[in-house]
């Protein structure tokens, strides 16, 4: 994971270069703009790119996110990673990391807040609405199933 972080940092640094920035920008694909479409097939790269991009995360958020990613990593042995369409964003005012996915049924969200809590939210197109508010002492595999199942 450190190698990936370093390469992203180097890439960002080279793009800032006064002498070579333009050339580098044209030749090398941008890691930072591509991170949201980065395949989840390589979970560790995905984890690194998210934590690199969302520097607003504190230690508790990172820890919770890492636990979730570990559970995800285990499950990706059984399911096709290309079908796991998880989008990443932040809720700026809350400094929260947001993972969300949309299916034909509705939207599922996982919110890792700055107080160490995790919210699961499901809003169905049929009017169904669900919410769970959890602390760190949860089974992350169950949380993953919940997030992926709707």
């Amino acid at each position: 994971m450190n190698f990936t972080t370093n390469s992203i940092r180097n890439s960002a640094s080279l793009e800032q270069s006064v002498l070579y920035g333009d050339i580098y920008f044209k030749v090398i694909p941008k890691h930072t703009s591509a991170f949201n479409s980065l395949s989840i097939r390589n979970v560790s790269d995905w984890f690194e790119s998210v934590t690199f991009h969302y520097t607003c995360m504190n230690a508790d958020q990172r820890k919770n996110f890492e636990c979730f990613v570990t559970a995800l990593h285990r499950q990706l042995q059984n399911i096709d990673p290309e079908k796991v369409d998880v989008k990443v964003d932040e809720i700026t005012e809350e400094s929260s990391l947001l993972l969300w996915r949309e299916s034909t049924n509705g939207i599922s969200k996982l919110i890792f807040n700055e107080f160490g809590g995790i919210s699961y939210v499901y809003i169905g197109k049929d009017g169904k609405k669900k919410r769970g508010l959890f602390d760190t002492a949860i089974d992350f595999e169950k949380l993953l199933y919940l997030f992926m199942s709707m």
Partner: protein
Amino acid sequence: MACQLAYIPKHLHAGDRQPENIFQVGEELYYRTNPDNLQRPYDNIKLQDISHNRSVLPKQGDKEDVLYNIIIDDEQERYENKTIVALLIKNLGELDTYSKTFTTKYDDALSVTITLLHDPVPCMYPHSVFELRLVDGTVVDSHNYTKTLGKRNQAYSDLREQIRNELTAMMLNEEIDSTQSFEEVVL
């Protein structure tokens, strides 16, 4: 105060007309948002001014009216790059409007009530808002936001998230339903 913007049609001027706070089932509310933000329109805004336009006021109104810019001293007349979402009022509470109260497990004494109100402004009679009122009676606005609902602690953060979820559900289902609440999930 009279409307000072020449490009706003006369029938949208509030003039002396008073608010009509009785809403109707079947009425629509129009909200403008960015086209690429339809799934999560409220995740990255502050919850201090949640404005919509009513469909039934005035009678000759049009849903496109919500695209008029009513900010004085701003050259842009219309928000041409925005899209409009129509929310259908499916049912109403006792006071003929939508109203819900949210509580938080992090502070038993705290709650916030969201209420749909008709709020005419000089250049936009159909203007309406989702008013947010704290349990002590304080109405949240842009001036007091950081000292009220915008406070940075776990209880207020939880309330804000619940309100965002409620508004997002309205947007996703394109309806306002006073009866449906979020079912609690336990792991």
